[in-house]
């Protein structure tokens, strides 16, 4: 895995977000640096949901946060509607922020415990109320409509504080807060990981409903492969700061081409069926992102690894006869188009 290349980027007028050669590095000690995200490219069409999946430390959250420039990426471009966000500074960047909002993992700690729900949801409006773009379009009706849309009673819930709500209800409040500024893109960082399974289903359904109702584009991060499959149109599998595989969700889950994707899928304990993937064994520990392995970053744990994997980084290639399924591997499990 762990490949580079931009062959999978689409040439489509409806592309809303296009990330090219994104690199995010953090300083670590003297001279060292953490290679959190290394040369990752992807694009998202308007109204589409892209699922980012991978183990902890694979850079999925860092990738999503780099989209909203927290922090500004080390290099690479983030084109939102044709504007390169990575080149924007100060007030120009601030003006872009309402367009991309975020929902976090822990619903309770991401809400201010001392404030009322109505104030939490409407804070964005207060911040943006003075600007010409936002003025007038937001009213108390809009706040009420949103609180109601996420399944809470605006009159009763609005005057209460977060501790009076369950985890699932707090996540509903987070969704309302993210939607108040009418964003185009919502980044969901593990939004259901802290919730019980029954509540998880409620929130996933709610996100689908909100996506339809407000025409949202979602970037959905989760380590849970079943959850990602359920909500995503396209899926991107990441490992140690690199992209392994990207494409149509159903196709990737049906015919995983990358050894890492196969290993991930075979590890999922499924309560309903046995999935037809042979048992890939993932040997060893996750290497350090400070000194990532050479060539393909997955080669140290890959059962199909050869000499070339150690020396040369694989480029993204398309599966033969499949419109939207790309893999970065020298020895994928499916036939790929040769470059």
């Amino acid at each position, binding site marked *: 895995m762990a490949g580079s290349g931009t062959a999978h980027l689409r040439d489509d007028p409806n592309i809303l977000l296009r990330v090219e050669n994104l690199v995010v590095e953090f300083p670590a000690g003297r001279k060292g640096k953490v290679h959190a995200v290394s040369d990752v490219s992807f694009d998202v069409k308007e109204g589409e949901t892209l699922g980012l999946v991978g183990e902890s430390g694979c850079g999925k959250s860092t990738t999503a946060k780099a989209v909203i420039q927290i922090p500004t990426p080390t290099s690479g471009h983030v084109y939102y509607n044709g504007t390169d966000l990575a080149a924007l500074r100060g007030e120009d960047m601030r003006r872009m922020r309402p367009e991309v909002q975020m929902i976090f993992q822990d619903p309770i700690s991401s809400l201010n415990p001392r404030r009322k729900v109505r104030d939490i949801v409407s804070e964005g409006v207060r911040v943006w109320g003075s600007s010409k773009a936002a003025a007038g379009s937001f009213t108390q009706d809009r706040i009420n409509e949103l609180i109601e849309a996420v399944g809470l009673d605006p009159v009763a819930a609005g005057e209460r504080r977060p501790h009076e709500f369950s985890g699932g209800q707090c996540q509903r409040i987070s969704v309302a807060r993210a939607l108040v500024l009418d964003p185009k893109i919502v980044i969901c960082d593990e939004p259901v990981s802290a919730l*019980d*399974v*029954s509540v998880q289903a409620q929130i996933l359904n709610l996100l*689908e409903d909100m996506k339809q109702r407000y025409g949202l584009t979602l970037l959905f991060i989760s380590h849970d*492969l*079943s959850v990602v499959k359920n909500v995503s*149109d396209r899926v991107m599998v990441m490992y140690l700061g690199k992209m392994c595989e990207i494409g149509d969700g159903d196709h990737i889950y049906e015919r995983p081409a990358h050894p890492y994707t196969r290993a991930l899928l075979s590890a999922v304990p499924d*309560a309903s069926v046995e999935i037809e993937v042979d048992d890939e064994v993932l040997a060893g520990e996750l290497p350090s992102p400070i000194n990532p392995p050479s060539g393909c970053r997955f080669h140290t744990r890959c059962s199909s690894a050869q000499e070339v994997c150690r020396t040369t980084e694989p480029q993204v290639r398309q599966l033969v006869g499949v419109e939207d399924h790309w893999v970065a591997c020298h020895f994928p499990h499916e036939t790929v188009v040769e470059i």
Partner: protein
Amino acid sequence: MSEITVEAVPERGADPNAALLDVKDYRVGFKTEHGLARAVDGVTFRLDKGKTLGIVGESGSGKSVLNRSIMGLVVSSNQIEEGSIHFDGTEIVGTDRQPFWGKRMSMIFQDPMTSLNPVMKVGRQIGEPLKLHLGMDKKRARARATELLTQVGIPEPGRRLDQYPHELSGGMRQRVMIAIALAGEPDFLVADEPTTALDVTVQKYILDLLNELQRDRHMAMTLITHDLGVARGRTDDLLVMYGGRVMEQAPTDVLFSAMRHPYSEALLESIPTLDHPKHTRLNPIPGAPPDIVAPPPGCRFAPRCRYAQERCATELPELESDGNHHYACFFPVGTDANAEALDRNIERGHTAVGLPVSKEGRVG
């Protein structure tokens, strides 16, 4: 911990065929200012040596309190414990279970970061139970700790002993926890959501490791989980809990092939699975878990159940047995009574408790 003495450990039972853990009508309550919170309300099960019992349920179902109480970890003046637990032939309800810890029963927790001491080196943490419970000296404890780390699959165990928990990955920390729990070679291990905080690949490794260690040591285990996939693949028997009560109880394969309780069915239907195409609409369980201080008079699950009838709202169903399959429901899934109950609710558009039911028989 320092007052534990080695000689206080009770002898192992004489009868090899007796259940290791025999729990009968066990109840745990907590006195609160609003009344008694019945966290565990009449649980009965038997766990043999070498077997794994899975305990499944949402947060607040009482699964953790049940296990912590069996271990004797919930010690508080407002706790009430009733019923009977025979551990290897000895009645332990109402007695101090501390002498059992480490040597006879042990526990691993969900979050390996907060259950390890962050300022104590790994070696000392593994050595502590060895010195306390087995009376080893420092040198032997260290040698044994190295052995234990090797058994749980940690590379370079000698070097790891001198590291602090923060220097290890999540999966490695959980392996250290397992090493500590198994140091005294216990007969019974409680695994409370041992892999919930871990990635799927690490989860698989840890569960495989637990299975292997369990087989080698002929150890009994309760595996608490909210993940039905984990429960299905890793347990011999299952206990489905809701609001402190057992809803359904059966050998794992029986339970999954003939699910009888509407709550078990609802739990299974609420999870997204890999075989469903993308954007499959999920079936959440509407509403919230019950109030255990003032529970509804009838079936605890009735307010959220799509099959609920008048009887469910007023009468508490007892656990009934169909061979080794037990369930507490008046209208068990897969029976004619159940199909009729759903038809009736679809026709009137709501259940007897007032929960709206769609034309397709869906709720929520």
